[in-house]
């Protein structure tokens, strides 16, 4: 019996380990920068990875209100979603539409996470994650605008388009801004992070502790890597993405920028957050319509 597939499995696992470590370090850097701006020493940059490992070995017990098996399966689904996004987007450079579908699945994960726990805080977090689906409306329009420009939604084609015509960020600055707001709304402590607002304890993660939280944190680390990579690939292109070291540098710069914004802005209330996101998506939609009308 020959195991051709063993090499691919090892490759896949190695890539997700890489994505998790990079994403975890970047999220640690995010916390550090926010802390330094606010005049605190802040935790070590390794803290995110340390937390993940620490929670992995903690005792857990399923709460009596939890709706199993969704309660523990949702943490596994969270990792599956982001690992699939990593492979389909970063490794195979497939369509942006599939990645958008996976991003929508992430909302289902957040919602299911909150509702299966049976805790009122978790439920509030789940409900707020449905509100913050307003962050995805700009994504639709951004994808439309990119399609009008490049005539393709396959990431490989978009990267090739930029090889010839230069980075898209200069041609579609508003679309890049709308996508950046999406990145921002995924970052912890950002003005749009209503899902993890401290007034509802830990939002949808409230009842997911111990190993379940560790698994969700692994998924979040991979998610951060994937989202930053997509932004770099779609808007800046081969200048950054062709060399992994340059990609890392670009991710560090983007994370620092996002941390700066997160540290300097207050958390919006849910209605204001949704209003601003809808406003941005309306402007992006206007941009799309103008482009269609102008041809």
């Amino acid at each position, binding site marked *: 019996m020959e195991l051709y597939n063993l090499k691919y499995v090892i490759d896949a696992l190695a890539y997700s380990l890489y994505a998790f470590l990079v994403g975890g370090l970047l999220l640690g850097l995010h916390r550090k920068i926010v802390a330094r701006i606010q005049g605190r020493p802040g935790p070590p940059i390794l803290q995110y990875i340390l937390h993940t490992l620490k929670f992995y070995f903690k005792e*857990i017990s399923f709460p009596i209100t939890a709706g199993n098996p969704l309660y523990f399966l949702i943490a596994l689904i969270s990792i599956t979603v982001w690992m699939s996004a990593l492979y389909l987007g970063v490794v195979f450079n497939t369509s942006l539409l599939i990645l958008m579908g996976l991003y929508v699945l992430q909302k289902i994960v957040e919602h299911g996470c909150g509702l299966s726990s049976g805790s009122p805080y978790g439920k509030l977090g789940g409900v707020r994650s449905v509100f913050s689906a307003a962050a995805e409306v700009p994504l639709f329009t951004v994808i439309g605008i990119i399609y009008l420009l490049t005539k393709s939604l396959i990431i490989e084609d978009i990267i090739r388009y930029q090889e010839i015509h230069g980075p898209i960020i200069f041609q579609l600055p508003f679309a890049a801004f709308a996508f950046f707001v999406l990145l921002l709304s995924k970052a912890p402590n950002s003005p749009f992070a209503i899902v993890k607002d401290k007034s509802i304890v830990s939002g949808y993660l409230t009842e997911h502790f111990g190993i379940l939280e560790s698994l969700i944190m692994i998924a979040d680390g991979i998610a951060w890597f994937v989202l930053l990579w997509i932004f770099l690939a779609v808007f800046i292109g081969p200048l950054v993405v062709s060399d992994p070291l340059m990609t890392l540098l670009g991710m560090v710069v983007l994370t620092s920028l996002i941390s700066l914004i997160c540290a300097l802005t207050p958390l919006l209330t849910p209605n204001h957050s949704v209003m601003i996101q809808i406003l941005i998506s309306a402007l992006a939609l206007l941009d799309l319509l103008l482009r269609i009308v102008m041809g």
Partner: protein
Amino acid sequence: MTPERKSGMLALIIGILGFLYILIFPKSVLVVYLGTALFTPFILYGIGIMFIPKTRRRKEGLLPFRGW
């Protein structure tokens, strides 16, 4: 057996069977990658549940009393 350990055992069995499947059968690389994405969390959960310390609660669904 506590429900946590039971779920961990089930996840481990599913994960190992899934990995055996993707190691032997698929011809397409994409299927191998997506299979890895699907079954790795089961393995992670199954292994992790084996490492957690023994629970200190007396009745199912109750957290142990840790003082005021």
